[in-house]
């Protein structure tokens, strides 16, 4: 059985390039040894942030932000036509990224503000058969992802 986990100093240049000597938490996928002849693609967890050519490592795992103090991870937000619904997101600070999905009747254009709260605006109306129809109440399902940076490309 190979070593699966490193917590601390990682000297395996197979995953981080020649000359790399980094610190963090590193976990190899099942059947692979984290200290062996593996590639960076064989790491399922890699907390290091060192970047060098041909030695790319990951920013971190994709994380879902709790939306309630009890740790709830998603919310259904019901919004009336021509109105705004909101959910508070207060557990991990600002600059979250929201994904809205599962609209109950498939109409409307939500506008999402995802800093410390999630706002969804229902439109005044929508078009159906080239006919303007007043927007109805909709239920939006939401999930919030943790952002790692606000840079344009990071």
């Amino acid at each position, binding site marked *: 059985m190979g070593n699966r986990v490193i917590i601390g100093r990682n000297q395996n240049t197979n995953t981080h390039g020649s000359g790399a000597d980094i610190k963090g938490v590193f976990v190899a996928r099942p059947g692979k040894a984290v200290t062996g002849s593996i590639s960076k693609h064989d790491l*399922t967890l890699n907390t290091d942030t060192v970047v060098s050519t041909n030695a*790319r490592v990951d920013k971190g795992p994709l994380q879902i932000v709790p939306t309630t103090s009890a740790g709830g991870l998603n919310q259904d937000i019901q919004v009336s036509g021509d109105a705004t619904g909101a959910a508070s997101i207060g557990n991990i600070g600002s600059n979250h990224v929201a*994904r*809205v999905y599962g609209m109950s009747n498939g109409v409307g*254009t939500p506008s999402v503000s995802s800093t410390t709260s999630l706002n969804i605006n229902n439109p005044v109306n929508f078009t159906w058969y080239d006919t303007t129809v007043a927007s109805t109440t909709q239920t939006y399902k939401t999930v919030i992802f943790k952002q790692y940076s606000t840079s344009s*490309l990071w």
Partner: protein
Amino acid sequence: MANVALIGRKSSTSGVFVAAKFNSAGNRVDVTSCEPYDLIYDSRSTRNANVYRGANTSTHSNSGLTFTDSTHPDLGYIPLTLNMEDVHGSHSGFSSGANYHQISDTSAWTTTSTQVTQSNISHLASSLGTSDYAFEKGGRATGIAFPNATNVNTFVLTIPCQYGKMTDSTYW
């Protein structure tokens, strides 16, 4: 205080690293007795969604967003990407007496191993039921009134999403 992390043997498997999440009451679950879905990290999983790169842009041009560079080389496969933006509501059109389309989510994207590009989805639904089709392509075509994406947030994930690359012998 529950056991929130475990390094070593779990059940009959050695070399395990697991960490627990919070339960609905706001307490950590015990990693020694919880179900797999209560773990926020589990090294027994073959592949995790690690973030390779991301972007926050006001919009994407038709040429797409290139997420590779000298320090972010091509992963060797088309990665799974998540794209979130403000304008992804419905679109409807009416071209003649018998043809119309209604699409509930117009946020469509094309991903290559180096780029993410906003796409069109066009759908012609005939009342005769014989010419229904849908297609998409990279970039925004002219003459179709789909809105451009705005306030785009992109995650490029280290999950292969390409035919021939999602096998144990490659990257899966």
